[in-house]
């Protein structure tokens, strides 16, 4: 399988490590102090264990371990292994407000200040 890396172009899937569904980006947000521990446990149980496991298009996380070490969200057909597309996981996480946000400006150089 060739994964169309958005920055590096087509790369062999062997360079990547597979994690699981892209829904793993949506880690439950728990706010403290915790008011309902059971509900939090339910949310994490669903997040960690339950899977859509579709036969068809599947959005999934691949880590470019033998490459630029970026996380990708790859859309792939689980019936045929056809890869439809790949995006940077950070872009997707930021779009839903999950990432670390836009890059902070570089710290001012104290020597020249």
């Amino acid at each position, binding site marked *: 399988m060739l994964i169309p890396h958005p920055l590096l172009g087509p790369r062999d899937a*062997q360079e990547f490590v597979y994690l*699981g569904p892209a829904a793993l980006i949506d880690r439950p947000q728990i706010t403290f102090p915790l008011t309902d521990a059971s509900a939090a446990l339910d949310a994490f149980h669903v997040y960690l264990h339950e*899977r*859509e*496991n579709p036969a068809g298009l599947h959005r999934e996380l691949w880590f470019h371990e033998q490459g630029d070490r970026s996380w990708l969200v790859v859309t792939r057909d689980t019936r045929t292994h056809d890869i439809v597309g790949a995006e940077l996981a950070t872009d997707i996480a930021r779009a839903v407000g999950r990432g670390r946000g836009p890059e902070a400006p570089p710290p001012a150089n104290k020597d020249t200040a």
Partner: protein
Amino acid sequence: MTYSGFRVFWEGLRGNKGWRPVWRDPDPKAAYDIIIVGGGGHGLATAYYLARVYGQARIAVLEKNWLGGGNVGRNTTIIRSNYLLEGNQPFYSFSMKLWAGLEQELNYNAMVSQRGVLNLCHTDAQRDAYRRRGNAVRMSGDDAELLDAAQVRQMAPFLNFDNARFPIKGGLLQRSGGTARHDAVAWGYAHGADKLGVDIIQNCEVKGFRIEKGMMRGVETSRGYIAASKVGVAVAGSSGLVMAMAGMKLPVESHVLQAFVSEGLKPTIPGVITFGAGHFYVSQSDKGGLVFGGDIDGYNSYAQRGNLPVIEDVCEGGMALMPMIGRARLLRAWGGIMDMSQDGTPIIDRTPVDGLFFNGGWCYGGFKATPASGYCFAHLIATGEPHPTARFFRLDRFRSGHVVDEKGMGAQPNLH
């Protein structure tokens, strides 16, 4: 129809005209007491034990394709009971006892061959881990022997003992383990169940469940609606798809596992041998082909075929273990869809729907479990309570934290 040596001789004299189909091919009735979805090894075994042990009648097995065309016909045929954990070992031990008497019970030659399973170890730490596992196996009443390198050399002199990186230090041998002819296991259970009046209905795909007020009423199929108040699902790789029709999400991912067979060679490998430093296991079929496999491909798949990198990886494992196979040609490779659970352990349990039972999450270890899986699932469906050896295989164990994680990998299905 009863099979015997005399029968083979008799039919030989009479031009083999007296053989009859191994099972009937009935049309579905309007209603049954119990429907089993999935005509593979586990489903057929469940139907057989429901009728034979639990005295149930009016049972149907629904199979979407042909009988035994899924994982029961795609595995590497290994049977063993060398597990570590309390949740697993008694169950596989029970399965091994059923294997030992299977052919006489079913009156069908499943070619069960208990010629030993040898797990090789390559480091001192691994030997310690095997010693611990061997002790756990023996405490459950099964057999396990720790061999040193000289004893392994006597059994399998062709192995690469002095590999610079992974020298063979010894192995854990289970003499009662071995192989069985996988297709014949499905056919044997079908034969046994059919004789007890079970309707085996092929080319009958389940399209949906009819559930009213949380109670199972029946199944919609490609051959019409069939009513049943109890439905057991044993569909391996398709578990997620079938249970989604009942509105359930499972702690399971479907992955592809490849298996391989070489051209026929002279008898050379005594039993089953597994490489401890990579993932590679091999046995030799009665036709002479080396039957071997390794890891799953590692990504969700329903394709029943894998990709070349894993083929290369498995063959590298084989070459590291026994360089003599380097000139043997690979004859065939194929894939099966594994229902990989979040802790590597199966599920045999009730579901939130009254009358719907689930059997799945077998990862790539379902074949050896076939008899006990059927027996325990039949017990659950008939009595409503889990069989004592399968009481750890609960569906709610992930929520409660009572996971049975044999490999200690955590909730990462592709690592089990």
